[in-house]
C-alpha cells in the first residue's frame, strides 16, 4: 500500500484505509439485503412465480390482515416480558450471593457459566430430552414429589409449553446476567454502601440509591442485549416446539422463516422483514433514550 510510504506525517487516507473493509462488509451483508428486500416487497414473487410486476402496497396491506403474524409478535413479546425480568432478578440475586467470599467460589462460577456457552440449538435439544414425558427426568422428578405418576406434555400442552420455553431460556441466559452483574457489583465503591448501612439505611434503600445508580450503565446494556436477543428468539423454540402446538409458540423469527423458506413467499417475507426492522428501530430508539444510554 503506497500510503505507508509517507513516514512522519500521519497519512491522510490511513484512517479510511483501515475502516473501509469493515464498512464495505457491513454494507454488503447489512445494507444490501435491506435494499433488495425493500424492492422485492413491492413485487409478487412466490414459490412458483417470479412475477416481478409492481404490486404496490399489496404485501404491506396483507400484513395487517395476517392474524398469524400479529400473534407471532405477541408471542415474542410475551416471552420477552416474562423471561427478561426473571433473568435480571435471578441474575442479580445470584450476583449478590457470590459477591462476598465463599469457599470454592471460582469453581462454582465456572460451572454456572456452562449453560451460556452451549449453543442455543443444543440447549433447546437438551431440554427437549429433559422434558420428554416418558424418558426424560423432569416428569420423573415431579412424579416423585407428587407421589404418583404425572404425565406432563411439556411441548404439546398449551399451558405448559410457555413455561417450558421460558425455563430453557432462563436456564441458558441467567448466568450471562449473573456474570455481568457480578462484575458490575464488584466495581461498586464499598465505602459508599458501608456508609449507607451505618446510617441505618435498609438493604432496599441502599440498593435503590447507592448501588443501582452505580451499576445501571452496565445493567442497561445487559437488558438491551438480552432484550434484542429475546426478540429474535429462534433456536430454542425451533428445537423444542418448532412453533407448536399449532402456531401457539410461533415467534416472529419462526414465522418469517416459515413464510420465507417453507412457503417460499419471497415478496411477503420481505415485507415482514421490513415490519420487523421498523418496529425494532422504534423500540430500540425509545429504549436507548429511556435508559439514558444516549444523552
Amino acid at each position, binding site marked *: 500500500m503506497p500510503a*505507508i510510504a509517507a513516514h*512522519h506525517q500521519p*497519512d491522510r487516507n490511513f*484512517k479510511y484505509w*483501515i*475502516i473501509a473493509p*469493515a*464498512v464495505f*462488509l*457491513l454494507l454488503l*451483508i*447489512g445494507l*444490501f*439485503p435491506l435494499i433488495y*428486500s425493500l424492492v*422485492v416487497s413491492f413485487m409478487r414473487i412466490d414459490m412458483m412465480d417470479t412475477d416481478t410486476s409492481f404490486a404496490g402496497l399489496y404485501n404491506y396491506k396483507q400484513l395487517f390482515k395476517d392474524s398469524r403474524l400479529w400473534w407471532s409478535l405477541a408471542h415474542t413479546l410475551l416471552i420477552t416480558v416474562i423471561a427478561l425480568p426473571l433473568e435480571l432478578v435471578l441474575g442479580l440475586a*445470584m450476583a449478590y450471593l457470590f459477591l462476598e467470599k*465463599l*469457599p470454592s467460589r471460582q469453581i*462454582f462460577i*465456572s*460451572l454456572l*457459566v*456452562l449453560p451460556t*456457552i452451549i*449453543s*442455543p*440449538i*443444543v*440447549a433447546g*435439544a*437438551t431440554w427437549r*430430552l429433559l422434558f420428554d414425558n416418558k*424418558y426424560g427426568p423432569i416428569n420423573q422428578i415431579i412424579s416423585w414429589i407428587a407421589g404418583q405418576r404425572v404425565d406432563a406434555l411439556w411441548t404439546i400442552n398449551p399451558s405448559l409449553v410457555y413455561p417450558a420455553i421460558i425455563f430453557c431460556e432462563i*436456564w441458558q441466559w441467567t448466568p450471562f446476567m449473573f*456474570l*455481568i452483574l*457480578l*462484575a*458490575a457489583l464488584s466495581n461498586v465503591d464499598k465505602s459508599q454502601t458501608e456508609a449507607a448501612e451505618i446510617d441505618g439505611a435498609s438493604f432496599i434503600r441502599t440498593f435503590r440509591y447507592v448501588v443501582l445508580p452505580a451499576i445501571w*450503565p452496565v445493567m442497561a*446494556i*445487559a437488558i438491551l442485549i438480552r432484550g*434484542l436477543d429475546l*426478540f*429474535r428468539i*429462534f*433456536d430454542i423454540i425451533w428445537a423444542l416446539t418448532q412453533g407448536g402446538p399449532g402456531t401457539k409458540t410461533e415467534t*416472529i*423469527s419462526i414465522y*418469517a*422463516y416459515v413464510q*420465507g*423458506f417453507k412457503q417460499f413467499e*419471497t415478496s411477503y417475507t*420481505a415485507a415482514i*422483514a421490513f415490519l*420487523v*426492522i421498523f418496529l*425494532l428501530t422504534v423500540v430500540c430508539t425509545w429504549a436507548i433514550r429511556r435508559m439514558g444510554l444516549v444523552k
Partner: protein
Amino acid sequence: MSALPFHRRHATRLAMRYLVALILVVIFVFPVYWLFIISFKTPDEIFAFPPVWYPNSIQFANYAVLFKDGDAATVGNSLILASVSTFFAMILGTIAAYSLVRFKTGGENLAVWIISQRMMPPVAIVFPLFLLYVWMGWVDTYFGLILLYTAFSLPYVIWMMRGYIEDIPLELEESALVDGCTRWEVLWKVVLPMARSGLFATAVFTFIFAWNDFLFALVLTRTEVTTYTVQVTHYFGGQSNFWAKIAAMSVLGTIPVFFTVAIMQRYLVRGISMGAVKG
C-alpha cells in the same frame, strides 16, 4: 438469631449461602450432565422407563457411529468457519475501531451506524441474503459463510475494541511515531500488544457467536459446509428422535467451546463487563 454471637451468625449465613450456591450449581449443571450421560448410554438405557440416572458403563458407540458416517466432520466445519471468521473479524474490526477512536472517522454517526447493525434481527436479513448468495454462487461454500460470520461479528468487535483502545495512553503512540514508526507499525507494535487481553476476550465471544449460529447455517449450507448445529437438528423427527445421536453430536459440538472458554477464562469476565461498561 440476633442473640447469637457475631461469628456464629456469620458462620450460619455462610453455610446458608454455600448451600444455596450448591443447589444453584446442581440446577444449572444438571441439564448438561444429562446431555453428556445420554451420549454414553446404550439404546436400552435411553429408552428405559423410568429413566436411568447414570449409565452402568461408559460406552462410545454413539460417537463411533458419528465418525463412521462422517457426521462428525460437521464439527470440523464449524471449527473452520468460526475460527477463520473470528480471525478476520478481529483484524478488520480492530483496525476499524482504531480508526474510530484515534481519528474520529465519520464522527459519532458512523460509530452508531456500525453498532446498530448488531441489533438487526438475523431473520430480517437472512432471506434477502439467501437470494444474494444464490446470485453470487456462495451458498454452501466456506467463503460465503466466513464472509457472513465475519461481517456479523464486526459490530461487536468494533464496539468492544473501541473501549479497549480508548484505554491505551495516547503518549505511547505519539512517542512511537516520533521514533519513526509508520502508522501500521504503531498499530502492530503498540496498540495490539496493549489491547491484548481485550483482543482475547473479544475473540472468544466472536468465536462463540459464529459457533452457535444456527439460522444462517440452516439456510445457507447444504452438504459441504454443514455446521454441527444444523447437523444436530437433522436427527429430530422422522421415524424417531435419534436421541443418542442428538446427544453425542451436541457433546462433540460443545467440547471445543468448553476448552476455549476454560483456557481463556481469565479474560472472559473482564471481557463481558468491559464491553458493557465501555459500550
